[in-house]
């Protein structure tokens, strides 16, 4: 759907983006991750043609992205902005018309979204009369009103309470189901794990990681296993002896435990099972994949260490 190819951007002799490439496929949600100042906003502005790349290019459906493609993109910038003195309906209609919608379509879509979010009562309110969360909802409607093929959302969940986060999350999944593609830039790693299919991690303008969420977590796994059992904890620990390292444990009752451990000396799951199976009753065992948050921190720190060396 959208490909970013070898994009670089410089401001005042500083490299903001360096040779960044990735693709957004049809019907997927891509997480664009990175710490503050990594270059995510610049990248999103380049995709939206707000600023131009100094090197490289962006394609939309295989063609170099052009002005006409912008009508097929819905962009929600991190810094939200609405005309404070405009009413909700005028605001939504204005931005809808700006994106090439007919007034009939605008009216129809406006009613659809106001009904869907159960906010018809806000219709005549001015933006300045709304709370931050309410305004965020209007901003979201403005972004999706023209049913764009691609949504580019910078921190779409910020400013929302948990109920509304869930509401927006469901809407995004609905969009995905209908075949729309979405790029989400967020620091909320739980959301990334929950709704993103793939992720791209950038830092200091460089791409550090790209892949499906599962792949990325697999690639970064640390040989950690989680084993749950019923029985004696001391007997379990003695059975492991020196071939395993217990990292953590959870005590559920006097004889029910969950233990996190790492293999040593090339041991594998079968070896672990053989070692403890006579001592305790195993109720579950699984590989523990690192959270996206851990992957994020680990990758950024690793890059820091490399650059400090």
């Amino acid at each position, binding site marked *: 759907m959208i490909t970013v190819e070898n994009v670089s951007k410089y401001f005042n002799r500083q490299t903001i983006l360096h040779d960044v490439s990735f693709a957004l496929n049809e019907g997927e949600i891509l997480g664009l991750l990175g710490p503050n100042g990594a270059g995510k906003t610049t990248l999103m502005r380049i995709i939206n043609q*707000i600023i131009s790349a100094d090197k490289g290019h962006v394609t939309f459906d295989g063609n170099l992205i052009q002005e006409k493609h912008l009508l097929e*993109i819905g962009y929600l910038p991190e810094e939200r*902005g*609405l005309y404070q003195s405009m009413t909700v309906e005028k605001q939504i209609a204005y931005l809808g018309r*700006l994106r090439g919608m007919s007034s009939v379509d605008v009216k129809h879509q406006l009613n659809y979204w106001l009904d869907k979010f159960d906010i018809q009562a806000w219709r005549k309110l001015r933006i300045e009369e709304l709370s931050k969360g309410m305004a965020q909802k209007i901003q979201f409607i403005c972004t999706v009103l023209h049913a764009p093929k691609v949504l580019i959302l910078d921190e779409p969940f910020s400013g929302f309470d948990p109920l509304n986060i869930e509401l927006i999350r469901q809407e995004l999944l609905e969009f995905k189901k209908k075949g729309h593609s979405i790029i989400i830039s967020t620091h909320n790693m739980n959301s990334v794990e929950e709704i993103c299919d793939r992720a791209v991690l950038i830092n200091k303008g460089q791409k550090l990681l790209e892949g499906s969420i599962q792949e990325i977590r697999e690639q970064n796994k640390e040989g950690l296993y989680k084993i749950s059992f019923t029985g004696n904890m001391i007997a379990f620990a003695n059975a492991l002896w020196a071939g395993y390292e217990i990292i953590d444990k959870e005590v559920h009752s006097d004889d029910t435990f969950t233990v996190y451990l790492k293999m040593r000396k090339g041991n594998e799951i079968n070896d672990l099972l053989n070692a403890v199976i006579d001592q305790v009753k195993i109720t579950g065992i699984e590989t523990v994949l690192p959270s996206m948050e851990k992957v994020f921190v680990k990758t950024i720190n690793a890059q820091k260490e490399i650059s400090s060396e």
Partner: protein
Amino acid sequence: MERFGNRSFKWLMILGPLLILGLVYLFLSSTTSTKKNWKVLIMDKNEIFDGKLTASRPQNLSFDFINAFVEYDDFAKDEKYKDYDLAVQINEKIVSNKHVIISYKEYPPENIQRHLVYYVERRLEEIMVEQFTDLSVSKFRDIKQSLQFNLKDANDPRNEKSTTASWVGFGFGILIILFVFMFGMTILRSVAREKSNRIVEVLLSSVKARQLLTGKVLGIGFSALIQFTAWVVIIGFGLYVFRLTLFPDMFSAGFVADEIAKEGAQNPLSNQSPFVELIYSQIHYTNMLIFFTLFFLGGYLFYGSFFAMIGASMGSESDGQQFVIPITLLLFLAVLSGYYTVYYPGTILSEWIGFIPFTSPMVMMVELSNGFEDGSAWKLFLSLAILFISAFFMMRIAGRIYKNGILRFNHRLKLNMLLKWTKK
């Protein structure tokens, strides 16, 4: 204290007064200094001055005497007097009536007027002292009555053209400047508001920066024209109603006859009050309105691009406020230019400022109200062309600055930053 640390504040603290001094210098130098040699004919029929003037003359003034009165028309048109710029009438009763008429072909600057007054006064003092007193010249100077000098255009001694027409043009010019300032500020506020509430990023994801700016400037310009049209319609209708209802007497034959009777034969040329005549007869509304609209559009686009530049590039509100001052001064300069053109039409400076886009909308309205001589209407169209080309050029620059500056926040605006933004 924060303002004191602001670079633009410091720059403006120095540049602001320098700019004003520059304007004052320009104005004063245009009215006082001239390199031209002014040739003066002193018409002294009774040879009261005896062909002499007292003090040594400055280089740019030369005098000739003639013992006759030359009619204004002859002085203006006769081949014999073509080299003379000014004529001073020394009437036979000057000693008692203290009245001197200076007729001119081109309005003399202040310094030339001062010199003339000085030489005539000094010479008359000598004559008075010689003929009527035993006092010294300096003593006599302390107690004497000053002469009254009256300047008359040799081509229009009855002041039929008068500056009234020029003031009409000046009024229209002021309207242009007022509208440009009002709607220029609207552009600035609108751009700055979209920038500060961040909606501009949403807008830019749908339309190009240049389109957005052009749309904004044209939209506001259109609203300005609508407002102006409303003004024209309401004022026009109001004047018509005044004429029909509130002041019908002013135009009745009886009223005119009464007025003439009251004034005797003092002013037979005018049968209405100058104001009424000005409003209902002198203004060529069609011409003025067409060119007003064109010059307003040109001026608005030209100055509007500056206002847009400021709005887009300012990092904070105080930054923007400070950069409005130079533009306001430029608009003030335009008003000053109009004022200058009213009093000194036809000078080299007034010709030039008619072509400079900063001042041309104002100056050309004054020139237009005075009327162009045959074959010189090209000046009006050249001025318009220069104005629109400059406006187009400035809009392009403003577009670049808008594109580069509109997504920059909380920075300190520097001139080199602006220059850099104009390049890409």
